[in-house]
């Protein structure tokens, strides 16, 4: 069974600080996505990484796919209150039949 573990589960930091969220698995994924979900809404896709070792930047967010395509990290620089939300990673296998979601990291940025 493929599993994606996210850590930490909860994170509360002060505005302006940096943070890193991790997504780990023992399985290899053909691609991995990061989503952010706000209360009462569905998850919104932030980025897709495909190649082992790939790094993508989205403003203050930096996403990295592990060399072996089993893990990923999300680093936020100078966090803002608008970054608050549930961050989910999701892995796709070679077929489109099932996307495995991690349990999420609930991020709270204090003003």
């Amino acid at each position, binding site marked *: 069974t493929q599993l994606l573990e*996210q850590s930490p589960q909860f994170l509360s930091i002060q505005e302006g600080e940096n943070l890193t969220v991790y997504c780990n698995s023992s399985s290899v994924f053909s*691609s991995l*996505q990061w*989503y952010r979900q706000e209360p*009462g*809404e*569905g*998850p*919104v*896709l932030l980025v*897709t990484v*495909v190649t082992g070792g790939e790094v993508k930047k989205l403003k203050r967010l930096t996403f990295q796919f592990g060399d072996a395509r089993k893990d990923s990290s999300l680093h936020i620089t100078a966090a803002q209150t608008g970054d608050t939300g549930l961050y*989910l990673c*999701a892995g*796709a296998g070679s*077929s*489109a*039949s*099932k*996307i*495995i*979601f*991690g*349990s*999420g990291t*609930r991020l709270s940025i204090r003003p």
Partner: protein
Amino acid sequence: GAGVSQSPSNKVTEKGKDVELRCDPISGHTALYWYRQRLGQGLEFLIYFQGNSAPDKSGLPSDRFSAERTGESVSTLTIQRTQQEDSAVYLCASSLVARAQYFGAGTRLSVL
């Protein structure tokens, strides 16, 4: 439509009743997914459609749950004889490829 639309947005039902949840995917998206999200938790995969067929039904938690899709468009998730443990947000997503799913806002189901 511009995005994935789900209806109703909220549903309150009594234990033992049947409910139908609807998902209108983005036009042209061939893949459609249903997930369940319990309060404060991540997403639990339920079922996946490619076109009108469902090659993967492995996530359906019991035979009370069923889903269909017609015209490679609208999908309906039906829960029969609802139980209190069915209370959750049911999310639908559509995609052209597995790498990028677009989600609706979900249906919040409360079983009393």
